[in-house]
């Protein structure tokens, strides 16, 4: 191998299309652009096979292919000689390529989604640089491999997340660690509402607005694709893919009155979305982005995936513990009950999407909306401010999906959204499995007529 494959990782980011040539049994060449070449290991690559059937037919007949890959940063071209080994229709390499392909094709607005038929595995016989344009340019020296330093940082962060017992602290510790220890400047954590097929922002760092409650449709953009496919998605150069970011931004704009803008860079060049997976299901997405090209490495992808898995597991555990918890209710804080401020505010609920508006400003919809309106109804009728997760879970009018109701996460979302909006009603957590309403003023509840 003239150039080790690990030295040309930037060629495998899907930024500049690769070119593949083959010969049929009679020696007639075929040449085709290729959307994705995946670096499997130091001596293997996998080529995406969606519909370039002639290439596949040829390599099955002759066993050989020639590949040109291009460094997305410098434009340097490399010629690879390949020997076909086998086609992969499942497994990690296949799944990762399928998710990445989906993200890249939607980024480049390639028309229909290009489903991956197979990932074709090749042994690399040689890899050599193609001389540059006007003159033969020097090959860039291989970048130093950083020996898993990022993974070590990720493992330490995962351990501190695992040490938390409070769901809020887990989320904050994750985002703070990602920004402080791993140096990701713009990050978000989103939780998946499987029933509604959407992801909702729980918290973010590095943006002008927090964006708690903003939404991304499942399957949309790098965030939606990571959740839908359970695979990390990494984009290294979005300069040709403005439409992609716009698609993400537009996904929640169907109803402007009920829209919270997704925090997000105006012109991201790199994005990394790692699914938060627990027991084989996506529960959310950890997301990082950057205005610079090639901001995230394969190791960053592994790091975020590791932390995402830990956060998913920790949140799940917190959920189960809150469900079991029957701690005695802490007494209300002195003054909290008595000190109701003067004035009143209007809370309006729309039953078609369970959205809640406070004084005509949109707050939230779905289960958290239903939840808030219910708590306020009880408060208005009985004056009660303290609730337990358990009674909420059993309340039939809330129609919580029983098995994986993610009540803790929804409460965090609701509480953070109320805080971000500086709403006249807030939620506090006096103890595990407990919720307290903090109401400033007198709520006047209103249910919008259906239709």
């Amino acid at each position, binding site marked *: 191998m003239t150039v080790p494959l690990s030295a040309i990782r930037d060629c495998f980011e899907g930024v*500049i*299309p690769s*070119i*593949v*040539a*083959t*010969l049929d049994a009679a*020696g*007639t*060449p*075929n*040449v*085709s*652009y290729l*959307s994705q070449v995946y670096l499997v290991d130091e001596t293997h690559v996998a080529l995406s096979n*969606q*519909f*370039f*059937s*002639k290439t596949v037919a*040829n390599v099955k007949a*002759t066993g*050989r*292919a*020639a*590949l*040109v890959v*291009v460094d997305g940063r*410098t*434009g*340097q*071209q490399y*010629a690879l*000689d390949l020997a076909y080994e086998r086609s992969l229709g499942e497994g990690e390499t296949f799944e990762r390529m399928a998710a990445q392909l989906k993200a890249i094709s939607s980024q*480049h607005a*390639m*028309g*229909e989604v*290009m489903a991956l038929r197979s990932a074709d595995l090749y042994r690399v016989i040689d890899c050599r640089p*193609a*001389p*540059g*344009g*006007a003159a033969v*340019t020097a090959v860039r020296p291989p970048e130093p491999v950083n020996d898993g330093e990022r993974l070590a940082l990720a493992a330490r962060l995962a351990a501190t997340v695992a040490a938390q017992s409070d769901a809020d602290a887990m989320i904050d510790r994750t985002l703070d660690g990602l920004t402080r220890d791993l140096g990701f400047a713009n990050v978000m954590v989103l939780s998946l509402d499987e029933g509604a097929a959407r992801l909702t922002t729980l918290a973010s760092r590095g943006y002008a607005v927090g964006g708690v409650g903003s939404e991304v449709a499942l399957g949309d953009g790098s965030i939606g694709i990571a959740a839908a496919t359970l695979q990390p998605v990494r984009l290294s150069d979005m*300069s*040709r893919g403005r439409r992609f970011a716009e698609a993400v931004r537009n996904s929640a704009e169907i109803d402007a009155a009920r829209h919270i803008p997704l925090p997000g860079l105006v012109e991201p060049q790199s994005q990394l979305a790692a699914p938060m997976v627990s027991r084989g299901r996506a529960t959310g997405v950890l997301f990082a982005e950057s205005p610079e090209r090639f901001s995230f490495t394969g190791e960053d992808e592994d790091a975020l995936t590791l932390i995402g898995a830990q956060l998913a597991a920790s949140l799940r555990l917190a959920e189960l513990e809150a469900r079991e918890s029957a701690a005695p209710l802490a007494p209300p804080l002195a003054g909290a009950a008595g000190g109701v401020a003067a004035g009143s505010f209007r809370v309006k609920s729309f039953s078609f999407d369970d959205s809640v508006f406070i004084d005509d400003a949109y707050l939230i919809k779905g289960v958290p909306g239903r939840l808030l309106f219910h708590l306020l109804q009880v408060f208005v009728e009985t004056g009660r401010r303290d609730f337990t997760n358990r009674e909420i879970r059993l309340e039939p009018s809330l129609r919580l999906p029983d098995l994986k109701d993610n009540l803790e996460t929804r409460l965090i979302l609701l509480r953070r959204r109320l805080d971000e909006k500086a709403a006249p009603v807030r939620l506090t957590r006096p103890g595990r499995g407990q919720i307290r309403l903090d109401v400033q003023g007198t709520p006047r509840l209103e249910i919008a007529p259906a239709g």
Partner: protein
Amino acid sequence: MIGQDLAAFIEGPVMMVLGTRSLAGLPAVGRAIGARVTPERDAIDIFASPSQWADALGGVAAGSQIAFTACRPSDYKTFQLKGEVVDVAPVDPADQVVAERYADDMTRVLLDLGVQQRQIDQWLTRVGLVRLRLSPSSTFAQTPGPGAGAQLGKVAP
């Protein structure tokens, strides 16, 4: 006969690649720097750099079979033509003008798409070019999608 629309496409600012058989009898890839359809529209003159793509062009001579693919980077519209090389010669001044104009136009298109100049410079070689005259025998639609690879006929559109 190469159809008028296809001729215009090939002569426009589209990225061009060649698939050939190397001297070692293996598949090889090269880029082309511009192309011009003959007045009779029965052949295409393709310009390419043998010093940059030694494997791909080293084995090409009159009688060689090659594949030529042209792709429009803005929408990935792609065609592939296959056929026999009927002549290989150094470029003449008129060929050089076509190749240079192609490189200029292609550079503008790629810059507009956000590609950087230093990247483009790696791909568009302007010196030491040869002219391959391809007599196409078949044309294929290659735009990404389920129709990719469909033969458009033995006679080009």
